[in-house]
């Protein structure tokens, strides 16, 4: 097992799936010769050629609609939106066609494509390069929405997404691209889409998060153990939609207290759905209001102040303590 960054792990998944299945093609802006602006697709064009690793014109709807056509014909496109902040240009193609072609054609056609997009803040980027709007896709029937949090689950989830017969929006936490390394097995590994994971067990409090926010969340769990002797159960959703509420509703029955964390704006954000599920399935066990530690309902500030906006371990710890004291 090699210790890889998330960029390397995603790159590994692409290499291996392209070797395994010649219908898998990669396309997007600068994904070929340049290897992607984050180097996620580095080396693919040399190995698989420009027929399978396509540098496209600068048009997000074009990339997406073109991929839908390829997928209908039988290819398995993995297309990239250079930043999730530009993915909205493709929204109508995903909502109207990728998400509907199977039902519309009575199953004759389906759209086995993956739309990769780096998302989230914390890399000192320019405007439109730090958004976290997974709720748009999660609320769209017919789409699956996946967000990995570590090199290893990024690789395993991307493999599952590529093999999924239906369209998957795959958000990559760009602030975690190179922030740390993890052992990633050389051999095949997959994680089923639609499955969350308990990454830390505990009885006192349930912390729910995903993607880049898993790091401050786990950090907060550490602090709470060290400073308060509190045992947090930490859940990584990994798939936002279809959301797996089995683990966090069970955990809430055990702990009775929940804090959830995401960097997306709070209102009408993913956290609201988590709360709704908890109320629907764990109502009688809830001992305190569920706290949302999230981005605020404004555009994430330019990078000098982006950490005013992004949830930190400290904010999570405070919310946890207030929830425990409730």
């Amino acid at each position: 097992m090699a210790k890889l960054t998330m960029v390397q792990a995603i790159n590994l998944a692409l290499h291996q799936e392209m070797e395994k299945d010649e219908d898998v093609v990669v396309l997007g802006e600068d994904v070929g010769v340049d290897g992607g602006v984050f180097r996620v697709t580095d080396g693919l064009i040399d190995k698989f050629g420009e027929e399978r690793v396509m540098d496209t014109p600068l048009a997000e709807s074009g990339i997406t609609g073109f991929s839908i056509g390829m997928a209908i014909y039988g290819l398995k496109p993995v297309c990239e939106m250079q930043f999730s902040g530009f993915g909205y240009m493709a929204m109508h193609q995903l909502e109207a066609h990728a998400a509907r072609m199977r039902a519309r054609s009575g199953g004759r056609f389906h759209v086995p494509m993956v739309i990769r997009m780096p998302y989230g803040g914390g890399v000192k980027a320019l405007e439109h390069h730090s958004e976290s709007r997974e709720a748009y896709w999660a609320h769209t029937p017919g789409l699956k929405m996946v967000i990995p949090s570590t090199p290893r689950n990024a690789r395993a989830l991307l493999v599952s997404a590529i093999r999924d017969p239906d369209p998957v929006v795959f958000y990559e936490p760009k602030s975690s691209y190179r922030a740390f390394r993890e052992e990633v097995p050389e051999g095949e590994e997959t994680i089923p889409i639609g499955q969350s994971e308990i990454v830390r067990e505990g009885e006192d409090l349930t912390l729910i998060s995903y993607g880049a926010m898993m790091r401050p969340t786990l950090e907060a769990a550490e602090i709470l153990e060290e400073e308060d002797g509190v045992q947090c159960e930490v859940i990584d959703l990994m798939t936002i939609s279809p959301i797996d509420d089995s683990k966090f509703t069970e955990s809430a029955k055990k702990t009775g207290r929940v804090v959830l964390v995401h960097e997306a704006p709070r209102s009408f954000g993913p956290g609201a759905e988590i709360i709704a599920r908890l109320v629907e399935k764990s109502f009688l066990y809830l001992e305190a209001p569920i706290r949302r530690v999230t981005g605020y309902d404004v555009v994430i500030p330019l990078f000098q102040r982006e950490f005013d906006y992004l949830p930190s371990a400290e904010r999570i710890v405070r919310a946890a303590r207030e929830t425990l004291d409730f």
Partner: protein
Amino acid sequence: MPREKIDLEQDIEYLSILNEKGEIDEDLEPDMKDDLLLDLHRAMLFGRRFDERMLNLQRGGKMGTFAPIKGQEAAQLGAVACLQDEDWLVPSFRETAAEIWRGKRPENILLAYAGFSEGGVIPKGINNLPAAIPVGTQTLHAAGIGYGIKFKGKKQVVMTFFGDGATSEGDFHEALNFAGVFNTPTIFVCQNNQWAISINRAHQTRSKTLAQKAIAYGIPGIQVDGNDVLAVYAAAKEAVERARNGEGPTFIECVTYRMSVHTTADDPKRYRSDEEVEKWEKRDPISRFQKYLKKKDLLSDEEIEEIESEIKEEIKKIVKGWEKKKKELEGRVDMFEGTFAELPAYLVEQKEEFESELPEKTEKPEEPEEPEADEESEE
């Protein structure tokens, strides 16, 4: 350091072969088998009559709103007549006749417009995409399918249809650009029927022709008389051959006219004159084609009568079959399956919740107080 004209190395041509009087330009007459000519004639006539029938089914409240093709039979049939079965068709929502030519069952078209998803089902072996309602969006799928064909080294081509209004959408632009850059075997057929609901062609874009938009992508573009089935066929034939030979995409503007309403929810009197409609009725694609076939002694008035009554019978059968099918399907629930290959847990839960409520599931709210034609939604 001059100021000089740039040679763009491409021209936009206009093609017309059979005029409204039924006169023909022999030099340009495409070489078509008699059977093909007669099949085309029958398909055009069938398209016209089926359209009329759908209109009164809709007016009679038996069907929902739909987009009539009256006047555009030549534009769409002349083009698809150049396709092989294994080729692909990517329609918009006004290609009923073309879809039927390509194997779509008329009964299913009626079912779809009656609001049954079952009408959208596409049988294996028929390479037609379902109708695409968001204007212009399907052109990108045709570009992508074209790439798939190229990638797999197949000899197929893909033909997509859209209207004059669709040329204003960003997706149209991105589709032609992608097709050009990746040199895909895609034929873009624009049925310029002069109107996008109430927006006239002249107000849709300032360019003199739509065909010249091909210059923006460095791909061949041609404008044809869209009511002249021979001209449409000839232009499409060239484009299909180029595509098959790996020479890439073509943009064809068929100049035609929407002789009927935009959809059954539309009232054209609000925005266009009867004179304009009458002017175009004189250019009807069917009567002109019949004149031609008669001159060629391929068709007589008696035979036309026969065909007409055959079609009448055929349509009667289709409508009967459709009504029977509707009965079968009524009350059937069709909502949860089909979205994904496998029903995910949360949809299973919702399905169970739904089924626990089935008794009331067919509840309908009282009818609105003052139904008006334009109350229905567009399309």
